[in-house]
């Protein structure tokens, strides 16, 4: 039952995020926009490029969607509205999202096309930057909650949300999440205007629709992760728990989409340099900070 | 106990801050070492009555780290702190306008912190850690001007020498901890019997490496390529002193045989290094050789059974030698070199610096009433009073004589000759450091003997014969050095002394050459014996066959020939195994592993 409810919430969230993305790009709020685009995509022929690596080509959009859904499955919307409340949930989110990179790699290699391949390898490079800080940020979260279980992570923030408790970790995780969802300014794998859509370039029709859906679900899942890890999840006065989760998740998604619009796209080398020279030290500092606060508070 | 810990932590914090801020390195280093000085002085006052403070910090499971401030360690800590502080004061001037100041001052502070940790360590684990950190920081500081030619080699050489000898310390600690069941230092010193002898010998090796005793003395002179403040610190109170400190602290452990060995090694060093100092053509290298010699005298005192004499000499020598190095640094800045021929007359041009240098030098030689007189007197008396006096006393006297001679030679070279020299940058800071330490070198003599007695509860050895003989040797040496022209002083010994008696020992013979020889032997074994064995087996068989043909043309002929052919083919096969093809060798490795597994299983089943 709760699985169906979460799935419905996920789809609704993905739709709303698609609306938000359109708004952040064009400045116009068109509630029907995503539906129209989806219908158009599904109506079109799904062209297959010449000499693709068929297995990888077909599997990539599905893997992207599945990994995003799996990540969302362990994130609680309310104390009981969670598909699987794993004892290692916080780590599982990251494990599932690691396969986003694999999916993009497959989408890059599969069609046997230059732009797509460049974009796929680019994302691997981007991963080398963000993957370490994101795990370190999660480690600091788990330190405070004394558990990797996501419901306990939320419960640990009853007094003070983690965004205020460990602001450095919040910033690191937020930016890493943007990298992971390849949102601008970290949108190297799609790079509109430079690589003609990158990993998406060779996809069309229904396959492209699945890929777009996967990306939207990915953004929702990451926003939900930020909400659960740093903004106290369902906690909040007056409104029912699921409503707080929804509001916070959408707000995070809007913030992520908007933030990128005002920054030019970063080059690969810049992304790596920033993450390694600044991101990792900051993430370590955050762990240290949380450890000190925990020891002092005891 | 927090006070004693501050003595370590303050310089350490300074080093960390310097590296983090990368600004104001000199001020931070001054503040750190100054705070350390205050802390260790306070500690010394606190424990002066014979009290002892200790703290246990969490360390490895079952092996906590302990700090121990008792009179002995507190005194050593004070020596380190005083010298460290004034050397840093001096270095502020010395490093003015030079590059790499951040690295330099961070290294100096770290060095002082590591040395404080060493002297205040109450257990072997912490001592070992500090010992290694000293090695590391001295490597970094000696190699400070790593862009110059020969500097990296010298730093590596110093590191390797001391590291090699450090193996002795490791082994000794294993022996002691295994025997006593605790890592705390004081209980392990009660160890007796064969374990004590073994541990004592190993400790002696470690101390000889760090204190640059014959035959491991070569690295110290090469280490002179580091900046002069580094040399001053290295020689007076830190790296080199660590060896002597180790011997002084563990002297209750040492058995008579080890003591005799220590005394002989020290005496030999005092003699040989003194000769080297007499022959040196570079002021800093002369001082380095003299350091070896003075630590030789301390080891001799330990060997003679009077570690308190060694201790007071260590303290006095710390002040003296740092003052000498600081003076030589001023001359170096004035003339742009430390070669003695270029320094001629440098003293006359800078009389105040020369005064400080001369006071320290005369103190080193043992002229009353300067500090060196008292401490050297104590060492001589110890040597005369020891059961091995016939062996040790002449060595000690010779060392004293040579000390006087090379001090006089250095002073003479600096004073005679044309005086000139430009202004020196940062002279004020350098002068302050030099003045303070020279003052200490002069005055410490009045304070040291009573302090030594008070702190350790032992009597300083005394003896009229020793005093008279020592004074005679000192004055004779001074006269010799001042009056006898340089090139006639050493006679036939001059050439080997100039080479630093290197062929007699050193890293190259002890470490590098055996390793290289081993490698060569292995190579020879591989392409000589293995191949040759395979081939010569075939060849031998052929020879046998040929011989047998002579005796029996037909019958056995074919048999022998086929045997020879078979042997040769077998040899060829054996060679083919080494194809250099990774997959073949992997297959062999897998087969070997399988075979090993079978053998082990059978072995396990059999038991």
């Amino acid at each position, binding site marked *: 039952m709760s699985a169906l409810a979460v799935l419905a919430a996920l789809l609704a969230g993905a739709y709303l995020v698609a609306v938000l993305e359109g708004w952040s790009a064009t400045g116009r709020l068109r509630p029907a926009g995503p539906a129209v685009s989806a219908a158009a995509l599904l109506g079109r022929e799904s062209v297959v490029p010449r000499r693709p690596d068929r297995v990888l080509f077909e599997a990539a959009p599905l893997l992207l969607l599945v990994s995003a859904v799996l990540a969302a499955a362990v994130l609680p919307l309310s104390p009981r509205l969670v598909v699987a409340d794993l004892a290692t949930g916080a780590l599982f989110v990251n494990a599932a999202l690691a396969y986003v990179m694999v999916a993009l790699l497959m989408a890059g290699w599969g069609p046997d096309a230059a732009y797509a391949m460049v974009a796929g390898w680019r994302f691997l490079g981007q991963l080398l930057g963000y993957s370490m800080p994101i795990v370190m940020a999660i480690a600091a979260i788990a330190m405070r909650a004394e558990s990797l279980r996501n419901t306990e992570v939320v419960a640990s923030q009853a007094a003070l949300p983690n965004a205020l408790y460990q602001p450095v970790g919040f910033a690191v995780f937020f930016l890493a999440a943007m990298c992971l969802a390849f949102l601008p300014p970290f949108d190297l794998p799609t790079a509109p205007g430079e690589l003609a859509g990158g990993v998406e370039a060779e996809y069309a029709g229904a396959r492209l629709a699945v890929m777009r859906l996967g990306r939207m679900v990915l953004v929702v899942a990451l926003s939900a992760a930020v909400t659960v890890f740093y903004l106290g999840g369902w906690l909040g006065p007056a409104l029912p728990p699921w409503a707080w989760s929804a509001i916070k998740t959408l707000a995070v998604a809007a913030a992520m989409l908007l933030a990128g619009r005002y920054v030019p796209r970063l080059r690969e080398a810049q992304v790596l340099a920033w993450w390694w020279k600044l991101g990792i030290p900051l993430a370590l500092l955050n762990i240290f900070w949380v450890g000190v606060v925990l020891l002092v508070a005891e | 106990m927090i006070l004693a810990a501050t003595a370590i932590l303050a310089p350490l914090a300074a080093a960390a801050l310097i590296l983090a801020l990368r600004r104001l390195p000199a001020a931070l280093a001054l503040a750190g070492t100054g705070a350390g000085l205050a802390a260790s002085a306070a500690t010394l006052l606190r424990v002066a009555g014979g009290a002892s403070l200790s703290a246990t910090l969490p360390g490895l499971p079952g092996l906590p780290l302990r700090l121990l401030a008792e009179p002995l360690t507190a005194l050593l800590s004070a020596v380190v702190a005083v010298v460290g502080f004034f050397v840093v004061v001096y270095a502020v001037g010395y490093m003015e306008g030079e590059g790499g100041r951040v690295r330099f001052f961070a290294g100096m502070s770290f060095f002082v912190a590591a040395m404080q940790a060493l002297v205040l360590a109450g257990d072997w684990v912490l001592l070992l850690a500090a010992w290694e950190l000293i090695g590391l920081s001295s490597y970094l500081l000696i190699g400070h001007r790593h862009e110059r030619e020969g500097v990296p080699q010298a730093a590596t050489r110093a590191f390797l020498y001391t590291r090699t000898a450090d193996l002795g310390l490791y082994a000794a600690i294993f022996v002691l901890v295994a025997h006593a069941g605790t890592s705390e230092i004081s209980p392990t010193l009660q160890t007796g019997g064969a374990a004590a002898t073994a541990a004592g010998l190993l400790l002696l090796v470690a101390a000889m490496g760090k204190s640059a005793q014959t035959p491991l003395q070569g690295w110290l002179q090469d280490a002179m390529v580091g900046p002069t403040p580094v040399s001053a610190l290295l020689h007076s109170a830190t790296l080199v002193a660590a060896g002597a400190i180790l011997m002084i602290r563990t002297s209750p452990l040492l058995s008579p045989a080890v003591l005799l060995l220590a005394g002989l090694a020290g005496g030999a060093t005092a003699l040989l290094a003194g000769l080297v100092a007499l022959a040196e053509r570079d002021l800093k290298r002369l001082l380095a050789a003299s350091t070896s010699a003075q630590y030789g005298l301390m080891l001799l005192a330990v060997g003679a059974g009077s570690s308190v004499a060694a201790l007071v000499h260590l303290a006095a020598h710390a002040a003296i030698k740092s003052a000498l190095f600081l003076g030589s640094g001023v001359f170096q800045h004035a003339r742009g070199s430390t070669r003695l021929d270029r320094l001629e007359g440098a003293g006359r041009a800078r009389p105040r610096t020369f005064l400080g240098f001369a006071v320290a030098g005369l103190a080193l030689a043992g002229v009353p009433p300067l500090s060196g007189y008292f401490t050297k007197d104590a060492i001589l008396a110890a040597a005369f009073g020891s059961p091995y006096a016939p062996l040790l006393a002449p060595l000690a006297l010779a060392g004293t004589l040579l000390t006087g001679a090379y001090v006089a030679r250095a002073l003479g070279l600096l004073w005679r000759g044309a005086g000139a020299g430009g202004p020196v940058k940062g002279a004020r800071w350098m002068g302050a450091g030099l003045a303070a330490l020279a003052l200490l070198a002069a005055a410490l003599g009045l304070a040291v003997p009573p302090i030594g007695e008070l702190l350790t509860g032992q009597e300083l050895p005394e003896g009229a014969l020793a005093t008279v003989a020592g004074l005679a040797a000192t004055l004779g040496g001074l006269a010799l050095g001042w009056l006898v022209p340089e090139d006639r002083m050493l006679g036939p010994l001059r050439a080997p002394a100039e080479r630093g008696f290197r062929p007699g020992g050193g890293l190259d013979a002890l470490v590098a050459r055996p390793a290289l020889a081993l490698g060569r032997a292995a190579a020879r074994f*591989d392409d000589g014996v293995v191949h040759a064995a395979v081939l010569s087996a075939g060849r031998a068989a052929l020879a046998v066959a040929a011989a047998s043909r002579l005796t029996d043309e037909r019958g056995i002929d074919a048999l022998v020939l086929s045997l020879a052919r078979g042997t040769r083919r077998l040899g060829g096969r054996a*060679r083919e*195994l*080494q*194809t*250099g*093809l*990774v*997959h073949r*060798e*992997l*297959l062999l490795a*897998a087969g070997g592993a399988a075979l090993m597994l079978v053998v082990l299983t059978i072995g396990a089943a059999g038991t």
Partner: protein
Amino acid sequence: MMALYVALAVGAVLFGVGLYGALSQTNLVMIMMGVELMLGAAMVNLVAFWRFLHPETYAGQMFVLVVMTVMALEMAVGFGVGTARFRAKGSVEMEEARELRG
């Protein structure tokens, strides 16, 4: 108990496949893949033994972590050597690497 036998059988077969790969491939990176498979088989066995025989001793899990570390090490060093080799010779084919010939 059945599950233990299943896991051990899987471990055995995986090890065999990995050994075959390490021995039969001509390319350095492919050889590394075979080694990784063998290490994976070792991990399967370790987890199975921990789970079904000694779940109270966490040294078993600890050992799995160490094996994961070893895998990462193997990758790092292997690729380091591979890169150096590629720079020098333009290929990582192991049949061309005969410098160790006796």
